[in-house]
């Protein structure tokens, strides 16, 4: 028989407390807020607040779902264009990070063992200094009267400053700069575990180093490539600070649209609907990432 006391002692025994505390925390602060976004995206603004989804005035709950925000997103070409351009910039960032980061991680994994901890620490160190300040630093470098233009002009290479700020170029610089370590770290973790005997065997069998790289190293580091790519791609889609500081008004990013819908237009349902569509977009790469992580864990 379950008495009241045993119920309480069960509730406060180790296992239940250890599981219950984080459960409560994340339910309140992660799960419920997402459900609230979903709910508000299906309502409309009434004055300074949103309409009630459930109307009790007749004594019966009457559910009203309002899809106008979603209709607006899918009919107004600006939103679609912004989603597409966010994906485009995120893909481009991922690709550039891979092109720069893969050789880097490869060389790092091949460098002398005693140097590797230091090389790794040098990659992590910028992480610890403010991201915002590092993005701001690019502004001082890339402005028309900024440092790069000044150096080039005083060296006589150019006569008039190159317009780099507030272009897709400055946006890409900022994004690649911020997310490159996220690509390098999983790739390095993967490549440093690579069994060199495979490559030696291939060399013994007469395979050229170039061919061995493409046939052995790259396929074996697939998990690292996927993990790194997703760690770059997922956060860049919704990035707000970098496009705001470096992208200028012409580069369309969905994070800024959400921000403006909320802060400038005060349209909560619209901001929520933009967020819900963004979440749906992220689910696909997230599933890919989780699958590759689970596979790596099984191995």
């Amino acid at each position, binding site marked *: 028989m379950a008495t009241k006391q045993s119920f309480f002692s069960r509730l406060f025994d*180790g296992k239940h407390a*250890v*599981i219950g*505390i*984080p*459960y409560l*925390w*994340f339910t309140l*602060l*992660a*799960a*419920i*807020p*997402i459900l*609230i*976004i979903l709910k*508000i995206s299906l309502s409309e603004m009434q004055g300074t607040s949103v309409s009630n989804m459930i109307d009790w005035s007749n004594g019966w709950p009457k559910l009203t779902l309002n899809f106008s925000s979603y209709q607006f997103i899918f009919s107004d070409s600006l939103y679609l264009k912004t989603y597409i351009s966010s994906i485009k910039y995120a893909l481009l960032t991922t690709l550039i990070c891979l092109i720069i980061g893969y*050789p*880097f991680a490869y*060389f790092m994994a091949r*460098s002398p063992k005693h140097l590797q901890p230091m*090389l790794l*620490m*040098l990659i992590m160190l*910028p992480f*610890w*200094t*403010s*991201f*915002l*300040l*590092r993005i*701001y*630093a*690019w502004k*001082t*470098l890339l*402005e028309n*009267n900024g*440092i790069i233009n000044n150096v080039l002009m005083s060296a006589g290479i150019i006569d008039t400053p190159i317009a780099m700020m507030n272009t897709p170029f400055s946006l890409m610089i900022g994004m690649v*700069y911020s997310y*490159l*370590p996220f690509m390098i770290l999983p790739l390095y973790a993967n490549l440093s575990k690579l069994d060199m005997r495979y490559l030696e065997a291939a060399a013994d069998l007469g395979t050229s180093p170039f061919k061995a790289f493409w046939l052995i190293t790259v396929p074996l580091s697939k998990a690292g490539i996927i993990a790194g790519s997703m760690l770059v791609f*997922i*956060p860049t889609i*919704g990035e*707000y*600070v970098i496009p*705001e*500081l470096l992208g200028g008004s012409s580069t369309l990013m969905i994070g800024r649209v*959400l*921000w403006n819908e*909320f802060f400038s237009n005060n349209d*909560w349902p619209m*901001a929520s609907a933009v*967020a819900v569509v*963004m*979440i749906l977009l*992220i689910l696909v790469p*997230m599933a890919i990432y989780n699958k590759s992580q689970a596979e790596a864990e099984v191995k």
Partner: protein
Amino acid sequence: MSQASNNKIFSNLWMIAVYIFLYLPILTLVVYSFNDSKLISTWTHASLRWYEALIKDDDLISAVLLSLKIAGISALMSVFFGTFTAFALNRYKRFKGRTLLSSMSSMPLVMPDVIVGLSLLLMIISVQHWLGFPEKGLFTILLGHALLGTAYAAVVVTSRLREMDSKLDEAAMDLGCKPWQVFYLVTLPLLLPALVSAFLLTFTLSFDDVVLSSFLSGPGYSTMPMVIFSRARLGLNPTINAVATVTIVVVTIAVIASSFYTSHQARKRKREEAQAYSDSNK
């Protein structure tokens, strides 16, 4: 021979180029914080002018103090809840809703900041309608930062828990320790380095965050990144370079000190383990 040395040169150049790319902006901030000119374009002469301006900048100073306070408290909260999360997910492999907990705990890691900020704010507004509190301000920023921090702290603590030997817990249990004694006497000391690095990481995340704070802050609560962000939007401002240099110096010292601390701890543990083995073999 020449092929191999060419490869070596190429790989070294590639790595040096990446490091220059990563450190060039940081170096620029530091160097130009000592530039006397208001314009970033011209280097006049070295001066501490912007550091003087920084000391007199009351808005910025109070924002820094607020950020430090928020970062300290939210990092403690993050480590607390993150440790619970890591234990729940690693020590209990099977319980109802484990998958849900693990996906909820990774949600703040993968969701863009703007979505986390918006969803938390709309939740807080709903609670406000319902209960009359909380007011937007310090408490709500703390909640947001602690949520993000918990997710990161859980990852850090998890990786330590995985490499920790559960035999030690079992041994302590066999020797008659109660579960809480096992935790305080065995698990916690072994976990301490991970807790310290989780604290430092979540402190930094909070100290750096601008998006969540902007959503969750109320009137009168501007954190340092919020102030910097609003100034940076307007244009270049040399005082920011001075703030940047100060934070970079502090952070670099802290990172180096903490890495010395962890390697010292690791050495100490190795020594003690070796000691224990040699004692038991006597």
